[in-house]
């Protein structure tokens, strides 16, 4: 019974459609329930993942996989959905263009992400990607009255469209050469023959570029800073975790599995991209004054670290990537909850606006320190272990230079994270009035912080789970 396995997707779509109608008919004043319903929807979907647990099959003409990998990412995406919803509620309520569409789009985006992660057919993956993208374009421009938001939207849109065109072109070539778009068939395809063909390598380049765009790898990252800065802050939060995670899921399905035969070719590509991304990301982040923009570069650097795992693409490195994604989602969710808080309270997006926050909102500030510490990769946080596993896999597979570069970059990254911590702790607040943390944001912060510590200190169960669901053995 195939539909049982895509129950989560169905639920999401259903709820989304209902909300769409609701937001149209219910007048603006009375839409307070929508976020709650959205969160409930995500939660329901998460529950609906249950029947598929432990299943190992392929449905819809082998287009969609029912496997642990898919479930793993589904759960993560739905968690992202919930966190973002909670984080958005207060902020969106303040917007003049409030209303349900926002949440509807969010749900569609998440649906798209799920499709990306669970499909085993390039066509389906591409469709999922488009779904995510189009929702994202609109979300980026959601604050219509704000020219920056518009600009973010248009830039993201144009770049996105071009990139997906390129990706599509690559796909077409791939299809042309192998006669299939199905990853399972590709896996079984005569691999020797593959690595011979130049056309195929060209196709591979286009694929890398297309997905590189989605996860914002340098040099395909350039949309990200602008989009991050311009988009409404909750949307930025979503961008910084959702689509990236989905993109990574797809990358794992396509390259280490589908195109394993070409490993010799794309491995080096990813290595270079990883090196460039983390370096450029960190260096550029140093100068930023706007925290959202800084976080954009930070996340570019983070993706750089993760991509090392793709370059290595050993069993351990893939598990490392999955662990990293898991950790990263919670870290960034929490971090952005903080950014949203200040934005929402009208305190600002500039780093100097964070001055003296340790007095104004001690717990929140402390939580933020935890997140930064995690992003730097200092022990007792999931961030440390995430980096540690990547690092280990790299050293193990002889990518010593990447490992060292990773270490160096972590040191550099201290520079800009420190800037914020310094503002929060070592500088006096301009206005000492305490900042009240609304419960929804507080929940996100707390979840983020606890998860960051828990996933770090008790990493074993998660590692075991990942070991079970990892597609690469």
């Amino acid at each position, binding site marked *: 019974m195939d539909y049982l396995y895509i129950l989560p997707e169905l639920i999401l779509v259903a709820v989304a459609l209902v909300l769409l109608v609701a937001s149209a008919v219910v007048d603006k004043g009375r839409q307070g329930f929508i976020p709650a319903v959205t969160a409930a929807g995500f939660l329901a979907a998460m529950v609906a993942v249950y029947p598929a647990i432990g299943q190992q099959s392929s449905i819809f003409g082998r287009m969609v996989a029912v496997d642990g990998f898919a479930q793993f990412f589904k759960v993560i995406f739905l968690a992202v959905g919930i966190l973002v919803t909670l984080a958005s509620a207060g902020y969106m309520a303040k917007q003049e263009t409030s209303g349900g569409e926002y949440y509807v789009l969010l749900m569609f985006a998440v649906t798209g992400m799920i499709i990306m992660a669970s499909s085993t057919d390039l066509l389906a993956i591409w469709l999922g990607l488009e779904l995510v993208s189009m929702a994202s374009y609109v979300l980026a421009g959601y604050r219509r009255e704000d020219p920056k938001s518009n600009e973010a939207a248009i830039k993201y849109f144009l*770049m996105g469209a071009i990139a997906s065109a390129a990706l599509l072109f690559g796909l077409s070539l791939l299809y042309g050469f192998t006669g299939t778009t199905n990853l399972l068939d590709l896996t079984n395809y005569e691999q020797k023959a593959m690595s011979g063909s130049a056309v195929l390598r060209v196709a591979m380049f286009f694929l890398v*570029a297309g997905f590189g765009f989605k996860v914002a790898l340098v040099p395909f990252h*350039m949309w990200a800073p*602008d989009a991050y800065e311009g988009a409404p802050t909750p949307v930025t939060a979503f961008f910084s975790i959702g689509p990236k995670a989905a993109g990574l899921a797809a990358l794992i399905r396509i390259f280490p599995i589908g195109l394993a035969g070409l490993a010799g070719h794309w491995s080096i590509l990813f290595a270079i991209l990883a090196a460039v991304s983390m370096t450029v990301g960190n260096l550029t982040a*140093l100068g930023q004054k706007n925290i959202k923009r800084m976080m954009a570069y930070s996340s570019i650097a983070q993706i750089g670290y993760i991509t090392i795992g793709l370059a290595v693409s050993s069993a351990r490195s893939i598990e490392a990537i999955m662990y990293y994604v898991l950790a990263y989602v919670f870290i960034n969710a929490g971090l952005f909850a903080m950014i949203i808080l200040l934005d929402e309270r009208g305190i600002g997006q500039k780093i100097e606006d964070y001055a003296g926050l340790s007095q104004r909102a001690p717990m929140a500030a402390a939580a933020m320190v935890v997140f930064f510490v995690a992003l730097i990769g200092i022990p007792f946080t999931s961030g440390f272990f995430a980096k540690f596993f990547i690092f280990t896999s790299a050293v193990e597979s002889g990518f010593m230079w990447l490992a060292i570069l990773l270490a160096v970059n972590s040191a550099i990254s201290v520079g800009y994270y420190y800037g914020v911590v310094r503002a929060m702790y070592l500088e006096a607040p301009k206005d000492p009035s305490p900042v009240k943390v609304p419960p929804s944001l507080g929940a996100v912060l707390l979840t983020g912080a606890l998860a960051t510590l828990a996933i770090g200190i008790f990493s074993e169960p998660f590692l075991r789970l990942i070991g079970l669901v990892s597609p690469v053995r």
Partner: protein
Amino acid sequence: MMLPYAWLIAALPLLAALAIMFFGRRFKNGGDFIGIAAIAVSFVLSLLVFGQLAGGAESYRFTFTWLNLGGVPVQNGIAVDNLTAVMLVVVTLVSMLVQIYSRGYMHGDVRYPRYYATLSFFTFSMLALVLADNFLLLYIGWELVGLSSYLLIGHWFENPGPRYASMKAFITTRIGDVGLFIGIIVLFLTTGAFGFPEVAAGVAAGKISGTLLTVAAVLVFSGAVGKSAQFPLHVWLPDAMEGPTPVSALIHAATMVAAGVYLVARAYGVFAESTSALAVVAWIGTITAVMAALIATLATDLKKVLAYSTISQLGYMMVGLGVGGYTAGVFHLTTHAFFKALLFLGSGSVIHALHTQEMHEMGGLVKKMPVTAWTFIIGTAALAGIPPFAGFWSKDEILLSAYHYNPVIFGLTLFAAFLTAYYMTRAVVLTFFGKPRDHHKHEHAHESPANMTGPLVVLAVLAVVAGLPGSPLMGNWFGKFIHFGEHEAEAVPAVMVMAIASALLGILVGYLVYGTKLVDRRKAIAVTRPVYSFLKHKMYFDELYAYTVIGGTQALSAVAGWVDKNIVDGLVNAVGWLGAQLGNISGWFDLAAVDGLVNGVAAVVSGAGRRLRRWQTGYVQSYALTFFATVIIGVIIYELIGG
């Protein structure tokens, strides 16, 4: 049997020191009696110990394993033999007298309890040093006496004099100690033990010999050079006179400075095996004896005169040991302890009365303070070596040994004897006879109280009789009691005659120059101007050291400090600055406060960072261009390289 309780002799003063330190203030008179009582008991015990050993008892030793470093045991313990016994008596006796004397001298001092506590602590340290049966414990006591000496010299630390003198004393002696330190290490590593008998046995067994042995011995001796203020490390002792006079008497005349001599005597087993080492000892001693005596002839500060005479006499003892006159050296140590303590306390009494140390402000005190005067004169006679006073016998023995050893040394020591007599006469004349030069001070002068004169008398008596045990009159009993297997040097009457002659001659000259108008001193000075000023400036030792050692070190440290601030830390700064210039950054990555490594990297990095940011033009099409340029160029390059 008394010997097993010898440790009490040292322990009591320690307890006294602690008691005074903590509770001294509670008592009306600062708990001085605690110290005196303790030392008195120690003295009695010492006498008992001495008595037993004199009665032919076996020398006693107690050791225990102090440490066990993975199969490398380190023994520690105490021993009482004849030499120790003598030292115990000397130390406890002088110390007791000085403490009694101090009641009067230090009366009403601001830090009276501190003074007594430290004094007792010194006694403890000195006794520990004497009781030690191994180099380790000896070294510990050695440093602790250094500490107490430092504290006592700096007793009046408000004044610049004591402040610098105390520091000078400690550091100068520590320089010597480093030598001793290494010497001990060498001996331990070769003989595998710290204990004196073991080391001596090891040396005898030839575990260490030849040059290495000489080096080791000389290193050990360098410690003695520091403590006993031998040339070239003598400079601290005269300055040490900044301390209270009783302290000078106890530490810087009778006991601590003699520790050096004691050390050599103790380690004689090591020295005896190396003639060259003994030669070094002898020559250093000789040089010191003469040099100090010469300087003493022109010193105007009464205590400085005595200080230099102490240095010179210590030189004598070294000569004695160096030339093989083991007994002689130790014997002179003993007698000297008494009469030099006497002289210092006498001078203290004078200073107490006149509140000055300048002999030019004294004179004609013999009537005012007879006891002080006559005891002082007795001390002088003893020091000058007039029979039958104590100094004569011991000095005579040293001269005798020197005579058998080497004519030059003999001559020089004889000359030193002459000088000694000369400058002491000078001191006596200037202080007690002639017309008072400072009438105001002379008016207020008065004889000191009993608790000060008492010790003087006691010491005066000792200054007379202490020599007898070592004299033929008592059949050289001392020599039988303390000896190092060396053959009894057969007496040479000529030597004795020459000794007495030189002493008398010295006194005569001294009297003629200072007692009578016979010599016009200004003319004399004018004639001997270069020599005069050379001696007057204490042979320019202080100046020399100030410019070389001290100046050198300070310069070095200044350089090091500068280097650390500007080079080691600044190097990275420089890199940073360079990076800053390269990346022409002006304030991106504003860790303005952060320099050093951080700044260096920061500058380079953020320079790069800024350039990279330029890449983000904001024109979406340039983004797209980058995108495709990368892909296409990537493909081309890849295919060219032939992936």
